[in-house]
C-alpha cells in the first residue's frame, strides 16, 4: 500500500505538519495582530481558543453541521473579545491582567460546559485534497488541507492590504500608535479598540473550532497545548505584519512535526531536542533580527508593553 520513502518522508511529514498544525497559530495571531495594532494586548486568547474548541464541537454536535459549529465558536470568541475590550475600556484597568483572568475564565467555562461533550462524536469539517496529482500516498495525505487554512491565508493578505492601503487601516494604526493624534483628528479611540479586540476574539474562536473539528479533531480538556499563548508571542515575533504571521505559523507547524517524523524514519535519539526545535528557531530568529536600533520596529506605540 505505502511505498518506502526513506528520508524523503521527513520533508513530506514537515510539509504535512505545516499544513495541519499551523492553522490555529495563524488565526489566533492574525486576530491578535489586529488587536495589538489598536494598542491593546489580549493575553486571554488561550482561554478563548479552548472555549471556541468546546463551542465549535458542541455546535457541530447539536446542529449536525460543522460550519454551524465554526460560526458558533466565532460568536463565542467575539463575546470574549468584547468582554476583554469592555473591561479594558474602564479607567486604570490593565489589559494584561484582564487577559490572564479571561484565559482562566475561558478554560474554566469551557471545561464546565464541555463535560457532556467529551464522549459524543460530532461531525467533522471536510478537508480539501490538493494532492490528487501525486501517486505517493504519503504526499496525498500531507496535502489534505482544511478550507480554513486557505481562508486564513486570504485573511492574512487582506489584512496586509487593509493596514497599508485603506482608511480603516490608517485609523487603526493611528489609534494604536498615538492616541493623542487620533483624538486630535476626532477619531473615536475606544470604539476602534473594542472592535479590534472583538475581531481578535472572533479569530481565536475559529482557531479553537479548527482544533476540535478538524485537527486533531476531538474535544477534550487537553486539546490545546498552549497554542493560544504561543500565537500571541508569534505576533511580536512577526513584528505585527500579517504576512509574517503566516510565515511564523507555518514554521511553528512544520517544526512541531519534525520530532515525530525523525523518529519514524529511525532517527531515534535526542527527540527532546527536536521537540524544542520551534523554540530554538524562535530564539535564533529573534537574535538574528534584533538590534538596539530597530528592535521594536513595527510595534504599536500605545501598546502597554512598549510604552
Amino acid at each position, binding site marked *: 500500500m505505502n511505498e518506502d520513502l526513506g528520508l524523503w518522508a521527513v520533508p513530506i511529514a514537515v510539509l504535512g505538519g505545516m499544513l495541519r498544525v499551523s492553522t490555529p497559530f495563524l488565526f489566533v495571531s492574525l486576530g491578535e495582530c489586529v488587536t495589538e495594532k489598536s494598542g491593546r494586548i489580549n493575553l486571554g486568547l488561550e482561554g478563548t481558543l479552548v472555549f471556541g474548541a468546546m463551542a465549535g464541537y458542541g455546535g457541530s454536535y447539536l446542529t449536525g453541521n460543522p460550519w454551524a459549529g465554526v460560526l458558533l465558536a466565532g460568536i463565542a470568541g467575539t463575546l470574549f473579545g468584547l468582554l476583554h475590550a469592555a473591561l479594558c475600556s474602564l479607567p486604570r484597568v490593565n489589559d494584561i491582567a484582564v487577559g490572564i483572568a479571561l484565559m482562566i475564565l475561558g478554560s474554566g467555562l469551557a471545561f464546565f460546559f464541555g463535560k457532556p461533550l*467529551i464522549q459524543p462524536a460530532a461531525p467533522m469539517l471536510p478537508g480539501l485534497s490538493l494532492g490528487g496529482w501525486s501517486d505517493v500516498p504519503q504526499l496525498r495525505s500531507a496535502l489534505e488541507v482544511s478550507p480554513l487554512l486557505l481562508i486564513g491565508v486570504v485573511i492574512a493578505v487582506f489584512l496586509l492590504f487593509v493596514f497599508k492601503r485603506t482608511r480603516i487601516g490608517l485609523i487603526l494604526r493611528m489609534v494604536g500608535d498615538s492616541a493623542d493624534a487620533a483624538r486630535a483628528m476626532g477619531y473615536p479611540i475606544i470604539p476602534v479598540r473594542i472592535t479590534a479586540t472583538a475581531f481578535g476574539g472572533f479569530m481565536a474562536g475559529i482557531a479553537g473550532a479548527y482544533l476540535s473539528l478538524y*485537527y*486533531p479533531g476531538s474535544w477534550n480538556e487537553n486539546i490545546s497545548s498552549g497554542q493560544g499563548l504561543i500565537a500571541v508571542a508569534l505576533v511580536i515575533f512577526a513584528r505585527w505584519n500579517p504576512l509574517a504571521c503566516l510565515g511564523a505559523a507555518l514554521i511553528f507547524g512544520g517544526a512541531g512535526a519534525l*520530532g*515525530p517524523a525523525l523518529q519514524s524514519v*529511525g532517527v531515534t535519539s535526542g527527540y527532546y531536542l527536536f*521537540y524544542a526545535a520551534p523554540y530554538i528557531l524562535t530564539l535564533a530568529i529573534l537574535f538574528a533580527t534584533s538590534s538596539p536600533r530597530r528592535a521594536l520596529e513595527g510595534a504599536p506605540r500605545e501598546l502597554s508593553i512598549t510604552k
Partner: protein
Amino acid sequence: MLPMNRRRFLATTAALSAAPLLGRVSPAFAASLTAGFVYVGPRDDYGYNQSHAEGAAAIRDMAGLTIIEEENVAESDAVVKTMESMIQLDGAGLIFPTSFGYYNPFVVDTAKAYEDVQFRHCGGLWTDKDPKNAGSYFGYIGTAQYICGIIAGHMTKSKRLGFVAAKPIPQVLLNINAYTLGARSVDPEITTQVIFTGDWAMPVKEAEAVNALVDQGADVLTCHVDSPKVFVQTAAGRGAYVTGYHTSQAPLAPEKYLTGAEWHWATVYKMFAEKALAGEELPNFVRGGLAEDFVKISDYGPAVTEEAKKQADAVKAEVMKGGFAVIKGPLKDNKGNDVVAAGNEYPETAIELESMDYLVEGVIGSTS
C-alpha cells in the same frame, strides 16, 4: 506534621469550624465510610482517569459508602489541598490519589499528618519505610499488552506496528517490549516503530506521530498516553487498525478497534471498600494481573480473524494458570546486547521488570 503556615492555619481553622455545620464529624466510624478519589485529568477522557472513575462508579452503590471525586488535580501542592479538603470538609476516611506523581512527597506527608485516614496510591511505590496508613496498588498490564501484540501480529500485513508512547519510563518500556514480543511470537519478522511524544497528554503531537507512523507503513497501532481518544480517532481515520489502552476505545472506532489492554480497578476498590467497611485492616501493598482480574482484555473487534483469536485465547488461558513469563531469556535488546540470559525467566511479578531500561530486538526506537 505538615509545616504550619498562615494559609494552612486559616484553611484548617475554617474547615474545623465548618465541620459541625455539615454534620459529618466521625470519619473513622466503620459502618459508614466516605472514600475520596483524586484524578490528575478529566475522568471521562477515554483513558487512565476514566479507568479509575469506572472503578469508583462500580462501588458507588455499596451500602454505607459515600464516594467523592475531584478531577484535574495537578501533581503538586494542589493534591495536598484536595486531600485535606476531602478529609476535613467531607470527612473522608479512605483516599485514593490515583496519579503516579502524587506519591512522594504529597501523599506521604499528608498520611503522616492524618494518621487515622487511610491512603492508597495507584502506582506501586509504597515501601515499609513509608507511613503504615498509606499503601499502594497496581496492575500488571504488560502481559495484557503481550496478548494484544499477538492479535496485532496476526492482523498486520506490512509487518510493521506503530507505538505512540509518552515517556521512556520502565512501565512504558515494558508495554512496548511485551507488545513487540507478542507480535514476534506470531512472526519474527515483525518490527515495532515507537515514537515518544515527551509528555502524557499532547493531542497534536500524538496525531502527528500517528500520521508519521502510517506514512512509514505501520498498519496496526497502539499507544501508551493518558488519553488515547485523539490517537484512536486519527489512526482509524488513516485506515490503520488500533489496539487500545487503559479502557476500551471501541466506541470511537468500531470497525478498526481490534482489542486492548484495560485496567479493571473495580476489583481493587471493591476489596478496599469491603475491608474498610468491615473494620478490617487494609493491605499496604496490592498487585495483580489478568488472573487476579486487575486488568482485562477488550472484547475482540469484528475484524479480528479466528486464527488470531485462537492463539490469543490459548495464551490467555496459560496466563490464567499463573507464572507466565513474557520476558524470558535468551533475549537481546535492539542494540544487540544480551539483556536476559538463556534460562532466566521474569514472570510479571518479578521486581527486575520495574527497572527496565531497554527496548527489545525488533523495536525501532531509543530510550533517550
